[in-house]
């Protein structure tokens, strides 16, 4: 028992330290600053600038949250405040199943539906010639993946709001919608931010599905219709050559470490906010 417990508590540190030790080789050679803020990526020449990949990750994550965030918020309000029983009975399994679908299936779906949709309809509609494999495709696939995750947290957040708060607002003459907009959403605001924060951390580390539709081109993306190359895709795509090029493994482990740290920070922040919220109740 105790051993299991110790493993659980130490695991985050072991993960971090393990990756750090592997990446020190590269860090001894080049400054971290240079690695993170240079876009010069030529492994054969020993140049490992991560900027392109970091920016791609940021693009994909931000756009996916822009898509998933409003959908989740509106759906959570719908399900907790308005929906009839049959809608709830339908949505619970829908959310559960969506949450259980493996990443690679989302990727296949992205290739089958989203990529052609962008290249054949959305692109031409906006007068653009695009391949479809793009930041936008990655973001849409990612958005659908993180929707059940964010939505479940939001539903919990709205469920924990006391009924009396609704009653107080209504008894002052507010309509249902005014109550939601001015009182409930405001009261739930820290919870909403946390849910989005956790969504970001989930999106930032997602690998296979994004990798399959995002294009994987090593140039800094300048718009959502351009291809990108996020950090997780970089790691996943190059594990093969990792051991044949000097320093390459160290560079990829550093990428994993960066990923780990960013995700941890978002996670910590959001969880902390949620725990503060619960203590207040």
């Amino acid at each position, binding site marked *: 028992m105790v051993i299991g417990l110790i493993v659980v508590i130490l695991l985050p540190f072991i993960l971090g330290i393990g990756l750090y030790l592997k990446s020190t080789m590269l860090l001894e050679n080049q400054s971290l600053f240079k690695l993170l803020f240079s876009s010069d990526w030529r492994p054969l020449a020993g140049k490992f600038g991560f900027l392109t990949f970091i920016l791609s990750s940021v693009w994909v994550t931000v756009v996916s949250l822009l898509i998933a965030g409003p959908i989740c918020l509106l759906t959570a309000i719908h399900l907790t405040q308005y929906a*009839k029983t049959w809608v709830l009975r339908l949505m619970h399994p829908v959310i559960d199943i969506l949450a259980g679908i493996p990443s690679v299936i989302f990727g296949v779906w992205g290739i089958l539906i989203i990529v052609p949709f962008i290249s054949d309809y959305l692109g031409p509609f906006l007068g653009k010639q695009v391949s479809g494999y793009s930041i936008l495709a990655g973001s849409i696939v990612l958005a659908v993946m993180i929707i059940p995750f964010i939505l479940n947290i939001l539903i919990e957040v709205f469920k924990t709001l*006391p*009924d*009396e*708060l*609704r*009653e*107080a*607002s*209504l*008894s*002052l*003459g*507010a*309509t249902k919608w*005014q109550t939601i907009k*001015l*009182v409930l959403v*405001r*009261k739930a*605001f820290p919870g909403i931010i946390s849910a989005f924060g956790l969504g970001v951390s989930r999106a930032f580390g997602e690998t296979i599905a994004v990798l399959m539709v995002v294009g994987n081109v090593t140039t800094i993306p300048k718009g959502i219709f351009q291809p990108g190359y996020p950090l997780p895709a970089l790691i996943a795509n190059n594990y093969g050559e990792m051991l044949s090029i000097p320093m390459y493994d160290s560079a990829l482990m550093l990428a994993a470490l960066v990923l780990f740290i960013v995700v941890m920070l978002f996670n910590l922040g959001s969880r902390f906010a949620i725990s503060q919220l619960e203590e207040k109740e």
Partner: protein
Amino acid sequence: MDQKTKITISDLNLHIGKQQILKNINLEIPEKKITVILGPSGCGKTTLLKSLNRLTDLYPEMKVTGNIMIDNDDILHTGEDITRLRQKMGLLSQRPYPLPMNIYNNVAFGLRISGRKKKRFLDKRVEHYLKMANLWDEVKDRLKDPASALSIGQQQRLCLARGLAVDPDIILADEPTSALDPISSEAIEKKFVELKQQYTIVMVTHVLRQARRIADYVVFMYLGEIIEQGTAEEVFDNPKEEITKQYLKGTFN
């Protein structure tokens, strides 16, 4: 009774699924008096109170039948806007639930949502009602602080001010002192006695002594039914029903 009746409830029944929560409630609530609804917990007091301003609408599983007449309008079947109707009644719940905004905006909330947004008007009203709830002196220098920063007793008075600010005729109070310390409780009780000059007050409680202190009119409920009702003297000094006697003696259950 010689005074005017404010609320007339006739044949009110309320079901949740197959369970009947309120059974054939017939009740006349006098104007500008304190009517106390007494009874052990789970007897339907709170539900009765909530059906008065139709908060029961919130719970689709509740089925309400019967009539509730307020000022000659049957509120269960009214054509009037429910938000208007609710503004006729201020609600004070068991624990204070301040809205997630600052003190000033809590009081101004009801006014703002009904479209009165002029700052000078709001300033005046906020001050007036905070004074009415005996809170003004304590908060006048920190109106922009979040309402949650107040003590629980202050919060309950803030909720009172907030309810009064929409200019109701009726105050509905659901065990308004149950979460408060004795001093804050006394302040609320005193306030109620003062407020009955202007308002019809309906209060739910299970604190017998509190009922004795402030009630003009008493309704005793048990298991969803009204067992006995009458003036405070009638019910407290000469209860007719055996259950009421037991409850008043405190030998209940």
